């Protein structure tokens, strides 16, 4: 385990050094990721200034949802971006090489790229989250801080799980499937708002099939003491994200078993 950790740190350093070779480009991309998402919040702000409130939620409360989901996605992207190029490994047959090495395949794939410019997303999500928490007037306790942290952990595991599933699919399809972006990017888009503003079927899907609720309504309703908040499920919410990640790992293992090399 410590050995794996050391190796990951090594991967991390290599990846970092690679990205730092093009420093200007790195900075521009960082700013780029900052801008893309901050624009979204600008749109939400404009809507609130027109409509006043959203089904009883205020802008500051929505800022919490927004912050949590974007932080989760950002962390998942920083660590899971190596999975993005994975379909190419299958297509070219280069995955064979990974199978020969004495490390878990997923570990190697994830170690391929640590995409630090996604920090740009964190830089915009965190201030918005803190602003929201401040305006709502949350009285911080250890429990509440843990709840918020848990929401981000749950969300990160959920998105990482989705990345793994998306990559694992290419064991069967060989071609990468763009359509899975619906769940990752679409999930982020959806999770910017509390799930209860959506239609029932949609809410059900993002609660029971893809448990987005674990980084959304469950913990945040509890944090804000909304009527109808579920204390037990709310505090357990990170577990659902982790569970989803675990299931994705099983799917990955099945995929590796199914893998037939395309040859060189």
């Amino acid at each position, binding site marked *: 385990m410590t050995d794996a950790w050391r190796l990951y740190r090594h991967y991390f350093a290599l990846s970092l050094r690679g990205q730092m070779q093009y420093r200007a480009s790195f900075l521009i991309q960082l700013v*780029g990721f900052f801008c893309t998402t901050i*624009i979204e919040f600008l749109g939400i702000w404009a809507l609130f200034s*027109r409509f006043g409130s959203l089904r009883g939620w205020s802008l500051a409360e929505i800022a919490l949802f927004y912050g949590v989901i974007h932080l989760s996605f950002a962390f998942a992207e920083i660590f899971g971006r190596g999975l993005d190029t994975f379909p190419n490994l299958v297509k070219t047959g280069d995955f064979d090489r990974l199978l020969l090495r004495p490390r878990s395949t997923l570990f190697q794939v994830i170690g391929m790229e640590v995409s630090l410019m996604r920090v740009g997303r964190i830089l915009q999500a965190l201030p918005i989250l803190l602003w929201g928490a401040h305006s709502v007037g949350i009285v911080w306790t250890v429990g509440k801080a843990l709840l918020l942290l848990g929401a981000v952990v749950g969300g990160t595991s959920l998105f990482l799980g989705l990345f793994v599933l998306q990559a694992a699919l290419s064991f069967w399809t060989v071609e990468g499937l763009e*359509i899975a*972006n619906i769940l990752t990017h*679409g999930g982020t888009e959806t999770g910017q708002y509390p799930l209860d503003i959506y239609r029932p079927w949609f809410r059900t899907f993002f609660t029971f099939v893809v448990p987005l609720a674990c980084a959304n309504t469950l913990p945040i309703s509890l944090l804000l003491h909304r009527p109808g908040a579920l204390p037990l499920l709310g505090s357990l919410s990170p577990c659902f994200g982790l569970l989803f990640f675990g299931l994705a790992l099983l799917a990955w293992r099945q995929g590796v078993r199914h893998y037939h090399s395309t040859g060189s």
Partner: protein
Amino acid sequence: MRAYRSLVAARFRVLLQYRAAALAGMATQLFWGLIRVMIFEAFYRSTTRPQPMRYSEIVTYIWLGQAMLGLLPWNFDTEVRNMLRSGSVVYELARPLDLYTHWYCRAFAQRVAPTLLRSLPLLTVALLFLGMRLPPSVASGLGWLLTTFGATLLNTAFMTLVTITMLWTISGEGIQRAAPFVVYLFSGMLLPLAFWPARMQPLLHFLPFRGMVDVPFRLYLGQIPAAQMFGEFALQLLWTAFFILAGRALLAQGTRRLVVQGG
């Protein structure tokens, strides 16, 4: 002229090969549109304040936006970038064609081919099942068609200009990354322009980007009277001419100092 026409036709045939990608893209856009429709639905149910658009108009606006997404200048020609990186851009320079027109034609086909493929089924589904409405009059519909054509010319000119800036930056960062946000924010794609605060309206009205999305869509809805279509179209053409002239000037500058990579 014939050369450019066949260039467009060839690019069309290449781009229309990706039918599975078009299907995936359509599914993504349907999903995206649905999320946005639901968000607006919730907002409209939360207020009695008068809004600049009715809910049914917003729904139509959203689906038009999803259908016309591909026309927007936000993914740039990566092949031109690769040409610049690898140095094979010299072949482009050696062709007996005007380089600007050549790149403009490429960009035009790149906008139009995938959009045609995606938008027709998407609009059909949206009109039949998802609450999108037809334009209130034939004239509004014609105004939409005319200004959509104008928007395509405008988008292409803008995109070609951005492509040309790659002669300087090569890596394809910077301007190429900033341009999509500007377009997204100021065109009406992020939010129909009427929803932005009143003090922003003069700026939004002045910028060329409203001609990319907001103008054709509001003509479709009848919010801009059909009688104004020719004025709006002329404005689109004016901005198109501006971007073309800027692009040509930049290209002339760029080819003079171009250092070809590779050997």
